[in-house]
Every structure is written in structure tokens, then in C-alpha cells.
């Protein structure tokens, strides 16, 4: 089973993402901010990481930058959840090593469709 780490400070978004992915047959682990996600990611391996950008403690961009430096996450798809207004965030995210982005708002079907680009 493919393992995904879902990171978002909003509980409802996290639950929605996690629930959708679980239904689609993924094994999902949740984290509520970048810092928590990073320490989880260091202990376990994941096939993909989906992270919000704006979070307290450690934001998504920093998380992606940190993850990308880890040997285990060299090729791992790292996706960020962003809003359409955050075009410069996409550029910043790419520079930090993000694989791609998912534009909010999205529905479960869109999430799974986008995920297909990097994990099957």
C-alpha cells in the first residue's frame, strides 16, 4: 500500500484529504504543521507528501526544502496545497523542491486526479 503524509494545520482539510486518500486505498499519516511532518518523515518513509503552505511553526515551503535534502526524499513527490492567489508561492515552492501543487479549493475527485500525476 502506498504511504502518503498529509500535512495541514486545518483539521477539516486534513480530515478531508486523509479520508479521500484512504478511500482510494492509500495509507495516510497526518501532521498538523511542517515541524511535526518533518519529524514523522524522518522516522518513516512515504511515497508522497501533500502539504499546505501556510502553517504555524513551520510552513510548507520550508518543510519541502528540508525534506528534499533528506536522502530518502530525493525523488519523492512533494505536493503543496495552494490557493490560486498564490502564484508566487508556486515558484517559491518549486525552487524549494516541490514536485507540483494542488490548487485550492479542490474536491476529492480532483485531488485524486492530480495525485495520479506522480503516484500510481
Amino acid at each position: 500500500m502506498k504511504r502518503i503524509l498529509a500535512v495541514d494545520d486545518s483539521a477539516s482539510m486534513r480530515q478531508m484529504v486523509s479520508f479521500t486518500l484512504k478511500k482510494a486505498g492509500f495509507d495516510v499519516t497526518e501532521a498538523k504543521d511542517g515541524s511535526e511532518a518533518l519529524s514523522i518523515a524522518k522516522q518513516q518513509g512515504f511515497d508522497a507528501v501533500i502539504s499546505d503552505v501556510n502553517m504555524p511553526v513551520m510552513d510548507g515551503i520550508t518543510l519541502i526544502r528540508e525534506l528534499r535534502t533528506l536522502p530518502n526524499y530525493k525523488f519523492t513527490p512533494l505536493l503543496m496545497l495552494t490557493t490560486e492567489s498564490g502564484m508566487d508561492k508556486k515558484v517559491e515552492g518549486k525552487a524549494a523542491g516541490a514536485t507540483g501543487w494542488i490548487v485550492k479549493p479542490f474536491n476529492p475527485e480532483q485531488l485524486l486526479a492530480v495525485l495520479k500525476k506522480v503516484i500510481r
Partner: protein
Amino acid sequence: MSIDLSQFFEVFFEESFEGLDAMEAELLNLVPGEEDLETINTIFRAAHSIKGGSGTFGFNSVSDFTHVLETLLDQIREGKRELTAEHVNLLLKSVDCLRELLRGLQAEQEPNLEEAIALRIKFEQILGVNQAEQNKLEVTASPAQLALNTYQIDFKPHHHLFKTGNEPLYMISELAELGDLETQAFNNEIPDIADLSPDDCFLSWRFFLNTAKDESAIREIFEWVEDDADITIALCGGLFADDDTQITAPDVIEENPNSTSAPAVVNVAAVKPIKKGTAVKASTPAAESTSIRVGIDKVDSLINMVGELVITQAMLSQIGQQEITEATIASLQEGLAQLAHNTRDLQENVMRIRMLPISFVFSRFPRLVRDISQKLNKQVELKLLGEQTELDKTVMEKISDPMVHLVRNSLDHGLETVEQRLAAGKDPVGTVTLNAFHQGGNIVIEIMDDGQGLNTVKIKQKAVANGLVSEADELDDDEINELIFMPGFSTADEVSDISGRGVGMDVVRRNIQSLNGSVEVSSAAGVGSTFTIRLPLTLAILDGQLVRVAKHTYIIPLISIVESLQIDINKVSRVGKDLDVLRLRDEYIPILRLYSIFNHQGAIETLDKTLLVVVESDNQKIGLLVDDLLSQQQVVIKSLEANYQKVDGVSGATILGDGRVSLIVDISGLIKLSGLRKPGSQELIIESQANLEAS
């Protein structure tokens, strides 16, 4: 796969309300010109989360509105725009507006968007967004590509592509889903094995795609790697474009217009109420929330305790199966002690789940005071004390409105204007203090202001005018102050929109009394007034002292007991007809005979053979005469009102270990009952002390 999003709504609403509270608190801390980035960031994040969530869960009215808010905040955050006081005011209004919208959605009512639209227009004016421009953007959305076309796509990833986590293989299969795909791969760039870096990508591809989709669909596939590869997409003559494929085109046409025109429809709908067709539900939105958020650590410790309870139970049942000997009795006792310990821990922790710090209520007042003082043009400082005092959640929800009313009154009627204060030689800035603390089994909330105090002359005039009292009545100040709690009383010369909205102090008092609480006022002209709310901690499990009166067992709340003693008959004096007073150190303690209050026969009546339990309530001590002190134990309060009817002097009942019902003595009720104190005054007891000194 269909997923019902509504299952996430409750969590979304809850966190959105929390986010709004956080926004509000941070906004109140903002001083334009000296804002710090973290505060702005926190506000931005809250708005951002609400926008993201509401968009995802289909609450477009909320997400559209939050969008403008977020844009403004983003500009401030990025330093592109300076924060002004106007921005703060507007943002605060938006918080209110969003809260209303969300409440409406939560109650599944049609949201009222007037306020939101008005605010949105203001934001757009600030942002300089031109409505016409927006419309233009919508129009320029490209029309559907209807016919089948063939594209030549050259895709040459840069060497580092794999390190972005992207996978060309998946992109190719995505391309294949768009139509007929022909693929050529080029491996001419692969270096010698000695120079080959396995992390890098050396392959490149050329595709011919025959599809009904337009170029943007293809671009979307490569969207994430645009900067990590050389991509050229060109429309070409017709590798596949023969007559057969053209014929299939009409099928596709039927679908496309719908999907491409959809964005325009959504934008129009967003301005209108989103649930147009649905009937407005008659039910009022539930003001009290039905769920409670509990820290995971509290739950963990509960589970831990239940675990210990299970172990103890296992231990006891093991003992129960053994033959009874000295040794088993000893370990049985040990086990029971353990059980008592566990039960108590568990109980305390379960209770703690329902208890929240009163800061949950207090936190709404900085905003309220700010808004009202602005409106009234008064300068006010709000002090919050005892914010960590814990209170049952249910009580907390119900006390909020009466408190708002009292604070409004203090601001409107109590505090003077700057000029008046200066003329009276006071600090131009008035102070309103909210204070909460535990006293006895109660929580006490005080609302104090240093304003002009209640105007007794005016109150009496008004009361006379309203026919509540007659001109001839001799009333002291406390009695006059009590009048404000009479139904239909309002002293404001003109009904302002701050206080006096037809809800009087009588309603405040009634609401508080319905919680088994009380509210009193004390006031001094020119110095200020204090409203004191007393509330039981309800749901309470009470630490009780069991006492015997004749053949009956009563419970005195342990927390109100000061001391218990044998009476020295020489120090007892009689005041008036039938009140005995004990001189205890420097105080005079009135003695109440429980047996006579509760009408029991057969109790010991001679003072020196009984015990006196000295208790305190409302800063007043009284002695209760009892026959004997029994054990102390925790008792669960059962409401008498719910099971029987209200009985004066008794706050509730409980069931003892042997199954008998025992009544819990209500100390302040007893004091009132025995006429030792008129409600709202402490005059009488002081008087009786004065009499005693005289005699």
C-alpha cells in the same frame, strides 16, 4: 468514488470559529504603524484557512468574501500596503460578518449576504479591483476547441527532473488519456557508463497527439515541469487527421460547452445566496454547541485511569474467589482503597473535561468594549482578572449574554464622558474590570466600573413614574439600587442602541437565577458600581461534611465550613427575641438551629451539648447547630427542582452509600431564610452587632 463532504462540516465550522476568534484577538492587538509580522501572519493564516476550507466544502459565499480579505492581508504581509486604522476596523467588521455567515450555514439557513457584499465592495475599493476588469477576465476564458487536432509535442526534460519528484512515465500515460498518442523516445544524450549519473534524466521524447482537447489540456499535464524541461507544443497538419476522426467530433461538442461555461455561472451564483431553492428552516440556530473539544492529553489520562481501574477490578475479583482469611481481608481492604483512589481520580478528570477557563467568555469583551467606547466616544480601559478560573461549559455559554448586557450598561450608563470625568477630577480613561474567582462552591464574576455610580434619585423618580414604588416610600440606597432589577425598568432618557434595547435588568437577573445563581449590585455615587454574579459550579460533585440532626443526615458543603467547635455557653448572648449569638474571638456568630429550621423533633436542644459548625457564605459567617459530625465524603448533587420542587435552605439532595436520601444545606439560602440578611444588603447583621456592643 463519491465522498460525502458534509461529514467534515462540523469540524470546519468549529475551526473556522476558532480562527475568527484568533483573528479578532490579534486584530485588537494591532496598532497601525507598529504591527509585527507574526501578528499579521496569524491573521492571514486564519483567513486563509477559512477561505481554503469554505471553498473546498462548497461554501462559496464565505470563500468569495474571504478572498478579498486575504488579498488585502497578503499585500500588508508582503509590505506592499500599509496597514491603517480603517483596515483594522474593516477587518473586524468582516470577522463579525463571517461569523454570521458561518452560523447561518451551520444552521443550514439561507445566508444574508447584504453585509458581506457591502464589505466586499469596500475591500475592492481599497484593493482597486475594477469590477469591469473581472468581467473581462471571465469573458476571455477561451472557447472550447471543438475539432480534433494533432499536436506535435517535444519534451526534453532537464537532467534534474527526477529530483523534483516528477515522473515522465506518468505524464506520458496522462497524455495517452487525452487521445491517440504516438511516442518517440531519444536516447542519444545518454553518456558513457563512466559518466552516467543514475539520478539524472537523459531521455527526451517527441509525441504526436490526436485529440479533441485544446492545447491548455496538454500544457496542464506539463504544468509542474515547465521550468524543468524544454517543452514545445505545436499544432501540426494532420498526421492522423483523416475524415474518419472528424466524424466523431459532434459527440464531443455536446459536452464541451457545458464544462467551459461553468465558471461564469459559478461567479454569478456566488453573489446570490447559494441555497436559493431551499426553504428557510423555521428552527432557530442552536446557540449552545453540542460538541466539546478536549485536549488529547486529557483523553489519554482518562484512558490511563480506566486502565488502572480495570486492573484494580481484576485484583478485587481475584480476591473474591479466594477463601476468606486474615490475609485476604487485608488485601481486600487494600484493593478497595485503591478502587476509591482510582474512582476519585477518574471522576475529577471527567469533570475537568467539562470545565473551561472563563477566558472563553472574557475574550469577547475587549472587542465589545472597543466598539462601544468608540461609538460612545468614551475612553475605556478593560481589565480582566481571574481568566483562568474554570467553569462548567454549559454555565459558561449561558452566562455570556447577561454579562454582555451588564458590561454594556457599565459603559453606557456607568462611565462618564472624558469631559465629565475631567470635571470630576478623575482619570479621563475610565476602567471596567471583569473579575472571576471561586468562592465556596460558587464561581463569582464581578463587573466593576469606576464611573458615576447608580443615580439613586433618578432611579427612584423613574420607579415612582412607573408605579413600582410610591413617592412616600422610605427607601435606602441599596433598596433603590435593587429597583433596577424590577421588570420594565430602564433609566436611559433615550433608548440608545448600546443598552436599553428593551431587555431590562430583570431579564438579566432572571437568566442568572435560572442557572441557580444570583446577581447583586453595589454602588457609590461618583466612585462606581459593581455587579456581582454568583453561580454554582453545577454538575458538581461536592465535597460534603455529613452531619446528624435528630435522626436525619444532612450534608454541609465542606468548602463553606470554617470550623466546628463545642459551644462555650458563657460566650453566647441573646439578641432580639430569639437569636443567639456566639462571641468567637472578635466576631459575633449568629447561631442557627438546624432542627428548628427543618422542623425535626428529638434533637439535642441545649447549646453546650451540641456542636456548632461555623460556615461562611457571601462574606458572612453563621453557626449551624448540629447533633453530631459524621464522615466526610464526595456526594453527587441531584437537583431537587428536577425531581421534586425547590425547597428553601436546601440546594439539592444526594443518595448516601446506604441508599438513603440526604439533603444538602444551602448556606446562603439559610441566611436569607432566617432573615439574617435582606437580599442585597449586609446591614442587619452589622446592626445586631452594634446593638450587642451597646448592651
